[in-house]
């Protein structure tokens, strides 16, 4: 469960302070599939960074599975990212020099999992996303849709509490986009909590709930009857 209380983020650049997030509060229950939407500059990327524990808030608190992570230090945040959050990025962010299998194994390396178990878990997930025959390929040898599947497998490999997708279909054509959204639906139906940050209304409409952000504030929190 995600609980955000009066979360603020201020960027200080010289004399000018930019308030990217203004005391935002909301709760996301386990098993939800939520879209966070807003135009560029609305603060949704900042919110995504805070939810992903990639950055710390200026004030407010953020409870992830009942633990306040807003005051955690760098290494504690790294551990939270490793254990509880699976990222899916617009640019896939795979390690270009490593094989697909190794890419999916990487979070497990940092979790200190032994090689044999790593390989089993990564292989089974790559199987699940339909890439069982591409284990030894490098990311640049497969299509964009397949790369995003690798990223999703990587996001799932540590059984995270939250899958955080940042414009996951931004670099994909509409057919592949539909496939990836279907995959998210499938994962959601299996109980995974999924948060998709997007500016695409079409993608947002396929979730269960849309949180609208504008100028750093939550302007609308609507339930979608998909």
């Amino acid at each position, binding site marked *: 469960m995600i609980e955000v209380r009066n979360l603020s983020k201020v960027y200080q650049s010289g004399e000018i302070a930019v308030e990217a997030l203004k005391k935002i509060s909301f709760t996301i229950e386990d098993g939800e599939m939520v879209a966070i939407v807003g135009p560029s500059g609305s603060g949704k990327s900042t919110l995504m*960074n805070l939810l*992903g524990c*990639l*950055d710390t808030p200026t004030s407010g608190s953020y409870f992830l599975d009942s633990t306040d992570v807003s005051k955690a230090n*760098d*290494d504690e945040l*790294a*551990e939270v*990212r*490793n*254990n509880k959050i699976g*990222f899916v*990025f617009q640019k896939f*962010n*795979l*390690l270009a*020099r*490593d094989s697909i299998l190794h890419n999916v194994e*990487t*979070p497990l*390396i*940092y*979790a*200190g999992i032994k090689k044999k178990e790593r390989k089993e878990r990564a292989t089974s997930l790559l199987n699940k996303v339909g890439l069982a025959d591409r284990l030894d390929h490098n990311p640049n040898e497969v299509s964009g849709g397949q790369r995003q599947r690798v990223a999703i497998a*990587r996001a799932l490999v*540590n059984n995270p509490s939250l899958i955080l997708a940042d414009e996951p279909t931004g670099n994909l054509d509409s057919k592949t986009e539909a496939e990836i959204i279907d995959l998210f639906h499938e994962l959601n139906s299996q109980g995974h909590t999924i948060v998709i940050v997007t500016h695409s209304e079409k993608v947002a409409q396929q979730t269960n709930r849309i949180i609208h952000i504008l100028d750093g504030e939550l302007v609308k929190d609507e339930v979608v009857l998909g």
Partner: protein
Amino acid sequence: MILETFIIAVRSLNSNKLRTLLSMLGIIIGVGAVIAIVSIGTGSQQQITSNISDLGSNLINIDQGWRHRNSSSTEFTLEMAEYIELTSPAVKKVLANLEASGLLIKEEINLRATIVGTEGYYQEINKYYPLIGKFIDKAAVDNASDVIVLGSELATELYGKQNPLGQKIKFNYNDNNFVFTIIGVMEEKGRGITGDLNDQAYIPMSTYMNKLANSNQVSGFIAQANSSKDANEAVEQIEYFLSKYLGDDDQFRIRSQDQILDTISSVTESMSLMLGGIAAISLVVGGIGIMNIMLVSVTERTSEIGIRKALGAKKRDILTQFLIESLCLSGIGGVIGVGIGYLAAYLISNIGGWPFVVNSLSVMIAFTFSLLIGIFFGIYPAMKAAKLAPVDALNYE
């Protein structure tokens, strides 16, 4: 975990082989140079040392001190050799240095040479024997015969491959010509304390004093101690006698073979120390090269660092990864450098003709130093990578 990080580091080095090799170059050259130079220094020193100890470490050289050119100086005389033998129990034998420089003349060849007046014992003292024919013997000294023994170089230059035994040769000294019959040619010998023996020639001491120089003045003596252990005692005894006899410590100078050896050793040692130091500087320069490459690498791979951090890599993981990379660069560079150093030392010792000796201590020091350089110059780039904020690193273009 360290093993995993190690594999990650090696994989990244392997993906850019040319750059890896180029950044190792400084370390390779530095380590190689240190090892080669120390080896060359040790090898050539060993050769000099063995040349000198061939002559025997129980030899003591006595010559006139700096004041002998003054009018008040007392000349050394032949009798002093006997006196030293009598008064110094640690001394076995004393030979006078009777030397004259002149021209050896064979038909149209004129050759500048040093002629030494001596006796048979000269061979034993210098461990220096004729290759063909014989040396000056007792009969030749007793009869003051006109015979001569040539050093190997003189024989080669004058006679080439011909057999010089029995030939007559002229020696021009003080505008007088003397004719000698060649009775022997000496073996080849390295440089000793009395200079290059190979271009000296030997005649009986009686012939030298009675016919050539017409005087019993000598330039110095070579004393042989009973054994190398007695050398220091012999030096003291000779010193004591000479200062009494000549009445002045500045009239003579005594150096044992060991002292000469010490001087030469300290010269070659400081030479190789200096050259080794210069080589060590290239090691440090190599380290800076590694730091440069690692800094570029950190900047280039900012987004990789961001991805790794997003996936849960801690500061320590990133730090270790980059530190291992720079350690690998310097370590592999060090290993290659050791190989190249060995090879260079081997080739140069072959060309120079001295023994091929690699000092294992210098290998260890050079290699350890290269690893230390890897850590020292790798730590800053690695810290820089570890400190990157995940957000900034991920969004880096």
